[in-house]
């Protein structure tokens, strides 16, 4: 199979999976889901690391900036989502976090 067609296949299948897995989400969870999905695309950090590892000079500076931005997206995204979800999973009438 042509290499580009392989990539197209990955893409199309991922589109269907992406829609299918969240199709039954209740409106209560829209905000955390958006936030969690937002964190997942922080995986661009992987791309930024790969590019930074082979760059020099000014390009390296740009690549490191990309690494910082991508890390903020990924780490911030997952932490903020966890903070939100933590509130949904409290034990009934249990101990209260400040």
């Amino acid at each position, binding site marked *: 199979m042509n290499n580009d067609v392989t990539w197209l296949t990955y893409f199309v299948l991922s589109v269907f999976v992406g829609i299918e897995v*969240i199709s039954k989400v209740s409106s209560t*969870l829209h905000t955390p*889901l958006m936030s969690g*999905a937002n*964190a997942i695309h*922080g995986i661009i950090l992987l791309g930024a690391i790969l590019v930074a*590892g082979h760059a020099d000079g000014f390009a390296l500076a740009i690549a490191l900036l990309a690494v910082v931005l991508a*890390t903020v997206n990924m780490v911030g995204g997952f932490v903020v989502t966890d903070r939100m979800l933590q509130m949904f999973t409290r034990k009934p009438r249990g101990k209260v976090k400040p």
Partner: protein
Amino acid sequence: MEAMPTWAELVFLLCAVGFILALKGLSGPRTARVGNLVGAGAAVVACVVPFFYADLDHVVPILLAVAVGTAIGAVGAQRVQMTQMPQMVALFNGVGGGAAALVALLELKDFAAVADLVSDVDAAYLVATGFTILVGAVSFSGSVVTFAKLQELMTSRPVVFPGLPVAFGGGFLAALVLAGLIVSEPVVWAGVVLALLGLALGVLLVLPVGGADVPIVISLLNAFTGLTVAAGGYVLQNTVLLVAGTLVGASGTFLTLLMAGAMGRSVSNILFGALKGGSTLGSGEASDRPVRSASPEDVAILLAYAEKVIVVPGYGLAVAQAQHTLRELVEVLGERGTEVDYAIHPVAGRMPGHMNVLLAEAQVPYEQLKEMDEINGEFRQTDVVLVVGANDVVNPAARTTPSAPIYGMPILDVDEARQVVFLKRSMRPGFAGIENELLFEPQTTLLFGDAKDSLGKLLAAVKGL
């Protein structure tokens, strides 16, 4: 770039599965937190892998950059108030888009270097590179503008100026031309200009969007960033980037449509409605028409002797940090034998599901939170509806006034109840910037003041009865 060893490909496959499970988990209340952690785990593992196979230079600076990013992200995420969640998500999304655009620019530089030697770079790579640069930049600047709107650093009302559609159309055409240039010959300056154009287009895209619709746009830009990352994955020939980005792009687009549906809006109407001049907006200023206002003691009596009360919480409640006082008031009323429920509009707060987060933070029992479809039939048998800091979601104009920007949005049928009490700070209209006729109806009473203050006085008055 060197060939990837099989073990690394297999780990990336596992990470891709992890992201699918994460999204699946995030869409159910019981599994959401675990899902998020699975996603985080997969992301961390995927980012560690290249250190073991890719023979990276500059490992120390990279790790330092990661440390800086982690510190910023974690501190920001820990500090942010739950009420400011939407703009925080917007910001995180924007920096992700920016990172993707920068990565693609650097790849373009490498392609340009190669093209001088062999002039044999696959056109599909260049298309994907141009797409990543453009859409990543749009996502970055668009997110910054949504942040400014929600943080009220600028007006939350639609900003439209006469040449805007022309500027947007022209900019878009110029971007296509530049992208075509990049495909025919990879030159770095064209990429830089494309990025700048993307930044301008992002601003122009979000400016005309009204405040109430901004969350939908955040969701849309989130999907954009996902697709950007997917295209970046193709450019870098990395499967996990492609799959993760596509998952987010697809689910984000679907989620955007779901959210828009919950508000009774179409996405094109949200983005371009203000440009068509189709919506007539209120003045955004306080009205001086007569209303009936009452003291906390009067309202306390109304509440204490009602059999059935429904509370409609809105963003104003959260801004005043009055969730805890409200929960106390509801508990006291419950002890007196009044039946009290909370009616949660799907877009109460600033994003779909936002109010549930805010009330959960105040330890309101989950069973008392009733969704709109569940509770709308009950208003007819309700003695008093207490609207705390909400406005647009109970505005009958959504049913009656086709020219209103919220027309068609499903609302809580508060106007069917026997008595309606609004706790409001002032007569200023809600986020959509339109007047609420319900405020002037005979069954309506207003209690002016800061929500926390008013609820405190109500609580004391009910206890004293």
